[in-house]
C-alpha cells in the first residue's frame, strides 16, 4: 500500500496543469467569452472513463478534476466526464465518443420545482443533473437564459425532462468534490500570494498572526479534503466495502471547506475582496455552484469502516 503518485499520474497532472495555466487563466472569466473546452477535449479529459483509455482510473480522473476546480472550469466538464462514462457503461459507444470528442456538449444542472437550472448551457441538448438526492441524465430541451446570482457563468432554465434515467451517484460525487477541493486550493493559493505582497501598516499582511492563522485554517481544510479524496477515489476504484462511506464523508467535507476557504479569501483580500475586481468572489460563487450540484450525503445511514469491536467482559 502506498499513497504516492505514480510517475504516470504525475506526468498527466503536470501536463494538465501546464495546459490549464496556459489556456485557462482565471483572467479568462472576465472576458465574458463562453468557456471553450476544445483544448481539454484534445487533452482527452472526457474520455478518461472510457474503456481502453490510458490513465482511466478514478483517482487520476479525480485529481485532474481538482486541477480543473482550481482554475474554476465550467461544471460542464463534470457533466461531460460523467455522461461519457454513463454512455459507455450503457453500451452506447457512439454516444460516449461524441461526448468525449466534444461533439455533443453536456451541461450540469439541478432540478428545482418543475424546472432544471443548467449551468453554462446555452443550447444544451443533454445534461446531468441533481434531483433532490438522485442523479439523472439524458436529453433536455434548450432553455431560456436566467440571470445568475452575482453574475458569471450563464444560467439556463428549462423544463425538467420527465422519465430521465437515474445514474449511480458515486463517480459524480467524487468528481464534483474534486472540483470543490480545487476551489478550496485556489482560495488558499490566492490568499497566500496576496498576503505575501499586500502591505498594510508597513508590513506584508501575511506577517500578521491573524492573517497567518486564517491561511493555516485554509491549509488544514485543504489537507483534509485532499486526503479524503484519495481515500474515496481508491475505495471506489477498488470496489471496497467502505466506498460509499468514504464518498459520503468526502461529500460532506468538500463543500464546507470550499465555501469556508472562499469566504476567508475574500476577508483576507479586504476591500478589493468584495469588489468584482479580485478573483476571490469568483471562487466563492464557483464553490456555491458546485455545492448545489452535489447530492446530499446521508453519512449517518452508512456503516463506518472503523467500528468498535464489542467484547463482552
Amino acid at each position: 500500500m502506498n499513497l504516492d503518485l505514480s510517475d504516470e499520474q504525475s506526468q498527466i497532472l503536470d501536463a494538465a496543469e501546464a495546459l490549464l495555466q496556459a489556456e485557462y487563466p482565471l483572467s479568462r472569466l472576465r472576458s465574458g467569452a463562453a468557456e471553450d473546452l476544445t483544448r481539454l477535449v484534445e487533452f482527452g479529459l472526457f474520455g478518461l472513463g472510457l474503456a481502453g483509455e490510458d490513465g482511466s482510473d478514478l483517482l487520476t480522473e479525480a485529481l485532474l478534476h481538482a486541477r480543473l476546480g482550481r482554475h474554476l472550469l465550467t461544471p460542464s466538464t463534470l457533466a461531460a466526464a460523467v455522461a461519457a462514462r454513463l454512455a459507455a457503461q450503457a453500451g452506447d459507444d457512439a454516444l460516449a465518443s461524441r461526448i468525449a470528442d466534444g461533439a455533443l456538449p453536456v451541461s450540469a444542472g439541478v432540478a428545482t420545482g418543475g424546472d432544471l437550472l443548467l449551468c453554462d448551457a446555452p443550447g444544451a441538448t443533454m445534461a446531468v443533473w441533481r434531483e433532490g438526492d438522485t442523479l439523472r441524465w439524458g436529453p433536455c430541451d434548450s432553455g431560456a437564459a436566467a440571470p445568475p446570482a452575482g453574475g458569471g457563468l450563464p444560467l439556463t432554465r428549462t423544463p425538467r425532462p420527465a422519465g430521465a434515467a437515474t445514474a449511480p451517484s458515486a463517480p459524480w460525487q467524487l468528481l464534483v468534490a474534486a472540483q470543490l477541493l480545487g476551489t478550496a486550493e485556489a482560495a488558499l493559493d490566492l490568499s497566500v500570494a496576496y498576503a505575501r505582497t499586500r502591505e498594510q501598516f508597513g508590513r506584508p499582511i501575511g506577517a500578521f498572526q491573524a492573517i497567518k492563522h486564517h491561511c493555516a485554517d485554509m491549509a488544514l481544510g485543504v489537507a483534509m479534503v485532499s486526503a479524503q479524496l484519495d481515500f474515496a477515489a481508491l475505495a471506489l476504484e477498488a470496489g471496497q466495502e467502505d466506498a460509499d462511506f468514504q464518498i459520503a464523508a468526502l461529500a460532506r467535507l468538500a463543500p464546507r471547506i470550499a465555501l469556508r476557504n472562499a469566504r476567508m479569501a475574500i476577508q483576507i483580500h479586504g476591500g478589493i475582496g468584495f469588489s468584482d475586481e479580485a478573483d476571490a468572489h469568483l471562487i466563492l460563487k464557483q464553490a456555491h455552484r458546485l455545492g448545489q450540484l452535489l447530492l446530499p450525503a446521508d453519512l449517518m445511514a452508512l456503516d463506518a469502516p472503523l467500528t468498535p469491536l464489542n467484547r463482552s467482559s
Partner: protein
Amino acid sequence: MDLTPSPDDHRFRQRARDWLGANAPRHRAPAGGAGARQAATAWLARCHAAGWSGLAWPRDWGGQGLSADRLLIWYEEYARTGAPSPLDCTFVGLHHAGPTLIALGSEAQKAFHLPRILQGQSIWCQGFSEPGAGSDLASLRTSGRVEGDILVVNGQKIWSSYAEDADYQELLIRTEPGSARHRGLSWVICDMRAPGITVRPIANMAGETHFAEVFYDDVRIPLSNVVGGLHNGWATAMTTLGFERKTAAMALQLDLSVRVERLIAEAGAAPGSALAETLADLRAEAAGLRAMTWRSVLREGGTPFDGSLVRLTFAELAQRVHRLAAELLGPESLLQGPVMTDYFESYSETIAGGTAEIQRNIIAERILGLPREGRA
C-alpha cells in the same frame, strides 16, 4: 436602569408604526442607477414632509431633535415595516456630513447645505479611504496644496459610496506638506462637479456599483470649504465617524433582529431539527445584539472604543444570517435575487470601515489594555 416605556413612548411608537405602515414603499428600490437615487430622494422627501427626517438633528437646523430612546423606537418600527435601508445615497449626507456640519461647520456652510441634505436635494459621498491605505486612514496621501484662498487637490480616493450620484463629498486630505499620520489633514467640502474630478465606479461582488474610485487632478476647492479648521481634519473625521457609529449603525443593528424573524417565519423549521437549532442561535444572538445596541445608545460612560464590540458583533452575525438565508434557497440560490444580493453584499460587513481583524485589535488593545503590537 429602566426600560419601561412611558405612555408618551407608547404613543410615539404607535405613531411611527402607523405612519411607516401607511407610507413606506412596499417594493425594494432599484439597486443602482438613476432609479435608485430617485427612489431614495423621494422617500426622504416623503419623510421630510411628514416630519420624519433629520430625526437626530437639532430642531434649530430643521431636525426632529429626537432623544436616543425615541430613535431606538423609530428604527425598530422602521425595521419591522421593512422600510428602505437607510444605507442609500442619502446616508452620507444625513448621517455623516450633516451632523459634522452641525457640530463643526460655519454658519454659512450650515445655512447652505443642511436644508438641502434634509430634503434630499443634495447627495453626499465620502472621500476618506485610499488605495493602499485600507483601514489605515492616517496614512492617506491625497494632497491639498494651499494657494491663496484655494486648495489644489491631487490624488485618489476609493470605496466612495454613491460617488456617481453625489453632489458633494466629505473629503479628507493632507493639507500640510510633509506631515505624518494624524497631523496636517483637513476635512473639506468638495463639489463633485468641480473640474478635475473623475469617478470610476467599482462593481462589488453582487454586481452592484455603489462604490467608486475618485481621482483628483488639480481640483480647486475654496479654503472656506474646510470644516473644523485647516490641518485639523483628523479631529473632524473622528467626529464624523462617531456619528456613524451611533445613529446610523443603530438602524442596521435593529434591522437584523427583524431579518432573523423573517428568516424563521419563512424557514418553518421542524422543532429539534438542526435548522431549528441554528435559527435559535441566530435568534438568541440577535436578541443579544439588540440589547447591546440599546445599551450602547442609552448608557453613559464607557470608552469610545466600546462601539467596536457592537459593530463587530453585528457584522459577523449579519453575515451568518445572510448566509443561512442564501443556503435555504437551495438550487434557487443560483439565480439572481434580493436574498443573494444581500448575501453577497454582506461580505463587506467585516471589511469596510475597519476589518474584523482590526476591530479585534482595537478591542484587545484599547478596551482590554493588552500590549500594542503591529496591526493587521
